């Protein structure tokens, strides 16, 4: 190093020690500084935009030259002639003329670009495929293949799809040449943003079977003076068991036909077993149980006498004057007592046999048969109307409304009309009266007047399509239109999150504030998160990184939203907010209850996580870049709440790392960690470790969506059993 010699400095560095230092300085250049390639390309684009603006402004001297009025007309005419000549000439030329190479793409500047498509880059001249492909660079790092159609190059990600939620930049460098050898004068960059990934498939609601042929309104049988409809559909929705005004238990096919009598008289209550294989009914002071397959009827003769009959799984349950009973190995067992004071009458047994409703004087109660605790339903004078198919909620009338209540008597929703009701497996409630039939979801949504006319005591068939009802003294049957399905709770919460973020993006703090509860307002209050994001770089877009239901009662959802900040068109930075939404008990809408913010991350510096889907036994992590597979297994891990690494099987395909073999515990917290050892195919490491906290998914369904009542295998209608 002492041999440093620079003639320019000979006269000032004569000392050996100084020369040595100069040699050190020359040889020991500082390492290249950190450089954000996105900044380099972004600045270039800004400069080019400015250059175009300057270039276009330069012809203003022509306008000044022709400004004097005397020359204005002459100038205008000359200009018109010139323009006309240019137009005629250019009509025969390719875009950009013969000398200028023009690059374009229909994706440039677009947002929400679909994932399953190639990136088309068009040129106004035939290109040398080899040099053009070699000059094409895609960021984030993506393996691509090329194909050509005339002057259009299709850039197709090797893995199939583009990454979701990602800003892509496709740059054609200056080494691209035309077929004639002309070079591209300056690099051209196409910028676009892809749409979110397709939502995971939601389980389709139980298919609604439309009877074939569809049933018109049809009178099936006389109820012989009955004041109400005591009836139940067979499990396969093909036939109806009913009790007429004389106490006869009969069966009639929903499509019509002869009535088959099962019990001639004295029947006061009936219930078909959940498995659909047996029918229990109260006749006189006995309970008779008809097994459809054998046609055999068994008898129970409880004391005190049964009033109402139902089922708890495969066991008969009944009410008597002093309580609710069931079968036991050595006879019968009383599940719960009814009050001993006042005028008490059992009203209904839940479909799952876990609850019963009774009246005491003018008051309505729901009784939990497991705890023997009762809860009052509504004010005095309330009338029981129907159970939800799963027996977890019920309907009662109070004044002019129907109330949806849980088994603790807590109001879940209030429906705007009253009447006799039935709750279907498709979560549609039919409300009948003298003058109309109304259909509505249990949350009060999609309320529709279905038919005008008399529809008393509607009763849904298990398929949720047909229903029986009473008109005059006859049993009728028809079908009701399907209501739009209730969105799953997570979708309802997502709607609020999107509306909240949209309002913030528009700078509408007032609107955004309406989606915050008191606690949420604190989170975005003074010293907290910014409700309206201002400054440079600008808040340009957002997307939901992950979403999950984390609780019930009340429904609670957790979202991680990524806010992307841009300079010009270029995404340069992002940060995340974790939002916790809770369903408001009054409005039943989700409100943002908690919010926390994460650190800012510079973009364009290695692969970024753009989507995380948490399943029961796997977690799928999607990146914006193609990854070096060798860096994934040890680089993408899950830690449990104690920080211990969870054992997983790691697979990788098309930008998505799947961590499977998990046994995530419901409501337990976990952390997804992407270490900086993960590399993209261009060799860039993840800029900084990325952490995402999440919870083990709930196995239960949330919100108003309930498990559909499983229709048992169709049972043949029994042969009429002479009593």
């Amino acid at each position, binding site marked *: 190093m002492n041999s440093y010699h620079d003639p320019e400095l000979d006269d000032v560095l004569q000392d050996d020690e100084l020369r040595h230092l100069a040699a050190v300085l020359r040889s020991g*250049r500082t390492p290249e500084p950190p450089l954000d390639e996105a900044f380099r390309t972004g600045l270039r684009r800004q400069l080019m935009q400015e250059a175009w603006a300057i270039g276009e402004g330069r012809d203003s001297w022509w306008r000044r030259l022709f400004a004097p009025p005397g020359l204005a007309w002459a100038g205008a005419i000359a200009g018109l002639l010139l323009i006309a000549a240019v137009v005629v000439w250019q009509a025969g030329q390719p875009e950009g003329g013969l000398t200028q190479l023009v690059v374009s793409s229909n994706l440039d500047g677009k947002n929400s670009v679909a994932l399953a498509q190639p990136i088309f880059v068009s040129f106004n001249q035939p290109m040398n495929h080899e040099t053009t492909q070699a000059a094409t660079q895609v960021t984030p790092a993506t393996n691509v293949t090329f194909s050509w159609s005339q002057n259009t190059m299709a850039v197709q990600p090797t893995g199939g799809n583009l990454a979701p939620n990602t800003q892509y930049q496709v740059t054609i460098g200056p080494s691209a040449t035309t077929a004639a050898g002309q070079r591209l004068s300056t690099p051209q960059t196409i910028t676009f943003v892809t749409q979110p990934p397709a939502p995971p498939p939601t389980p389709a609601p139980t298919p609604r079977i439309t009877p074939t042929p569809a049933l018109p309104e049809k009178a099936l049988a006389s109820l012989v003076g009955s004041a109400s409809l005591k009836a139940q559909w067979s499990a396969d929705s093909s036939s109806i068991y009913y009790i007429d005004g004389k106490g006869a238990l009969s069966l009639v096919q929903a499509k019509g036909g002869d009535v088959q009598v099962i019990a001639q008289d004295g029947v006061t209550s009936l219930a078909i077993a959940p498995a659909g294989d047996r029918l229990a009914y109260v006749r006189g002071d006995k309970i008779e149980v008809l097994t459809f397959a054998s046609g055999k009827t068994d008898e129970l003769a409880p004391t005190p006498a049964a009033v109402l009959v139902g089922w708890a799984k495969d066991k008969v349950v009944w009410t008597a004057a002093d309580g609710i009973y069931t079968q036991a190995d050595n006879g019968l067992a009383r599940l719960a007592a009814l009050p001993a004071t006042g005028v008490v009458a059992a009203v209904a047994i839940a479909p799952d046999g876990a609850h019963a409703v009774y009246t005491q004087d003018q008051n309505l109660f729901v009784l939990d048969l497991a705890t023997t605790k009762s809860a009052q339903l509504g004010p005095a004078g309330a009338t029981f109307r129907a159970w939800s198919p799963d027996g977890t909620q019920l309907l009662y009338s109070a004044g002019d409304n129907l109330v949806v209540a849980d088994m603790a008597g807590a109001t879940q929703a209030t429906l705007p009309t009253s009447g006799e009701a039935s709750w279907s497996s498709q979560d549609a409630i039919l409300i009948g009266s003298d003058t109309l039939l109304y259909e509505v979801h249990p949350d009060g949504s999609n309320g529709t007047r279905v038919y005008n006319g008399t529809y008393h005591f509607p009763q849904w068939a298990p398929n949720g399509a047909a229903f029986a009802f009473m008109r005059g003294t006859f049993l009728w049957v028809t079908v009701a239109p399907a209501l739009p399905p209730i969105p799953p709770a997570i979708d309802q919460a997502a709607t609020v999150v999107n509306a909240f973020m949209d309002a913030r993006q528009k700078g509408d703090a007032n609107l955004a504030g309406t989606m915050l509860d008191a606690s949420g307002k604190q989170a975005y209050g003074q010293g907290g998160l910014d409700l309206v994001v201002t400054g440079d770089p600008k808040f340009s877009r957002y997307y939901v990184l992950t979403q999950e239901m984390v609780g019930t009662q009340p429904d609670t959802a957790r979202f991680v939203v990524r806010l992307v900040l841009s300079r010009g068109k270029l995404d340069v930075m992002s940060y995340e907010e974790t939002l916790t939404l809770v369903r408001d008990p009054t409005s039943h809408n989700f409100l943002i209850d908690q919010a926390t913010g994460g650190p800012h991350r510079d973009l364009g510096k290695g692969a970024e996580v753009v989507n995380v889907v948490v399943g029961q036994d796997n977690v799928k992590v999607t990146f914006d870049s193609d990854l070096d597979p060798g860096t994934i297994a040890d680089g993408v891990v899950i830690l449990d709440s104690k920080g211990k690494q969870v054992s997983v099987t790691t697979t990788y395909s098309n930008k998505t790392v799947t961590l499977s073999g998990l046994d995530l515990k419901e409501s337990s917290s976990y952390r997804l960690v992407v270490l900086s050892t993960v590399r993209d195919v261009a060799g860039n490491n993840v800029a900084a470790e990325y952490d995402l906290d999440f919870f083990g998914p709930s196995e239960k369904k949330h919100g108003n969506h309930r498990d559909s009542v499983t229709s048992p295998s169709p049972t043949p209608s029994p042969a009429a059993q002479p009593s």
Partner: protein
Amino acid sequence: MSDPSRDDERELVERAKGDPRQFGALYDRHFQQIYRFVYSRVREQTAAEDVTSEVFMKALKAMPRYQDTGRPFAAWLYQIAVNAIADRYRTLKPTQAIDDFHDLSVAGPALEDLAAHRDELRRIWALVEALPHQQRTALVLKFQEDMKIEDIAVAMGKSAGAIKLLIHRGVTRLRDEAATLRPVE
């Protein structure tokens, strides 16, 4: 014989003077060195990006006025950069000298760390950071950017003699500072 790369650069400059849309080629050619130089002065990425943006934006707008004096085009860009860096710190904190920013004190922990590693290269460059800003700029342009004295003179708006003097003083001061850090043997 003329320098082909200089001829090439002259052509690029002339084209950009005539049509600002041709400035991209000059940007591509000089971005890295200007960014590196700016970063070496401000030592912070966001600031380096801001200043680099300003340098090229000013250069683009001033292209029609650019006169080829026979010096490399980069010298003109460095000149804009030197002024932009000075402006930036004047604007940010008028009473604080540029040397106070990112001043790596000889007694500071970073330097102790460097000394502990006995890494001469890094130690010397750390010492450069502590030099008065004119000396530092001259040394960076000379030894890191490998510029000629005349070009540095253009960039810094000084005479060639003044630049030589800055370099001499800078290297001499480095020698003195390095001596104080040298472990006792």
